[in-house]
């Protein structure tokens, strides 16, 4: 079995990091995806406001859900006042 041979005094004393968690893509946690129907969207940004992932951004007048991180909790679907977001099967086109 391997032994540690590097000089221990050249290894870190602590690991204090500040690298953003966004390096961790959580999109694959999802079993269903929220889809914004732009024709219905009023741009009220309630979906942005209530996203627990902070993965909805404001692009001009409209919200955009970033699927790299969206876990599919569907809070946005539930909270959208005009039903402009639907939850679709992950496999659906």
């Amino acid at each position, binding site marked *: 079995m391997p032994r540690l041979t590097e000089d221990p*005094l050249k290894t*870190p*004393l*602590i*690991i*204090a990091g*500040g690298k953003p968690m966004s390096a961790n893509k959580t999109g694959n946690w999802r079993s269903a995806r929220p889809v914004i129907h732009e024709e219905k969207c009023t741009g009220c940004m309630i979906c942005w406001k209530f996203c627990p992932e902070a993965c909805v951004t404001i692009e001009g007048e409209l919200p955009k859900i970033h699927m790299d991180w969206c876990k599919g909790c569907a809070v946005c679907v539930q909270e959208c006042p005009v039903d402009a977001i639907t939850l679709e099967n992950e496999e659906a086109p």
Partner: protein
Amino acid sequence: MKKTLMGNHAAAVAVRLARTEVVAAYPITPQTQVVEALAEMKASGEFAGRFVKVESEHSAMACLVGAAQTGVRCFTATSSQGLAYMHEMLHWAAGARLPIVMAEVNRALGAPWILWTDQTDSLAQRDTGWLQFYCSSNQEILDTTLLAFKVAEELSLPVMVNYDGFTLSHTYEPVDVPAQELVDRFLPKHDFALALDLADPKAFSALPKPQEYFRLRRRMAADMGRAHQVIASVEDEFARLFGRSYSAVEAYKADDADALLVTTGAPASTALDAVDELRKEGFKAGNLRIRQFRPFPAEALRAYARPGRNLVVVDRNFSMGQEGIFCEELKSALYPLKERPQVFGTVAGLGGGDITVELLKEIWLDAKQGRGDALQPVWMEDAR
């Protein structure tokens, strides 16, 4: 300047001289006067640091963990039950590599309730990653507290300065209080490389992977190993500046001795009288004082190990199911030697019983004559 100070006040004076920035402490007998003296110095303006009157010892150490993480010089003092209550935080302070200094006034642990001295409280913290020193005089308490800050800051490890409850904590002795400018030269403003930086936010003590944790522990062990050198060079610098020298193991008339007492704390100064009396009576007696317990000075102790010359350890502490802790550690230090001396263990003065010159003489004479059980300690009753 010479002053007559009790041990607790000597510790408090050192904390003031070190320009300690944050003190957090909770009162417990026999440590209380450290806290009171600092509160008084704070009220009079003599002490410029902050004094947080926390609601428990656990919070005292937690407060210092937070403060030390910002890069300030920190101190607390406690004793016995208080130290036990702090235990979780001792591991945390060391693991986070925070150079916190603590005065620990040795007092026995309950149950039953007991107020007087015994080292089991601090020795039971041996695996927490704190450096530990055991003082034998009030001068040494002041000096070791100053040394402790420097050593802690060089190693990024916390340091515990231990001294006997009442025997030292409440006893007045003449103490040379060094001049502030000299202390300032010895202890410049603390600049902590691992401190949090508001301009560069990071998470401290966040969950690592097991492999990373393993390496962090290995690094800590390596720094403990390096500590022997660092302490020695800080002690050298201290001696140059202040004219008083200290070392991990302090030998007294050991060179030609037929057998050696091995002592710690205040009884180690009583042992010097015992050795002198025995010498007057024609015996070649000697004493080894273990001043530094973590890291354990195994190499320094091996230098005094001669086959045929018995060693007898006087432990005012006990590890249940094993033996006196200094005895156990000494035996383990000597084990790698091909030829080893006989090591006898004695247990004396638990809970504050007197360890007198007479008692120490008797222990030495027994050891010299090989009267003792190498397998288990002899329990010496308080002679009074």
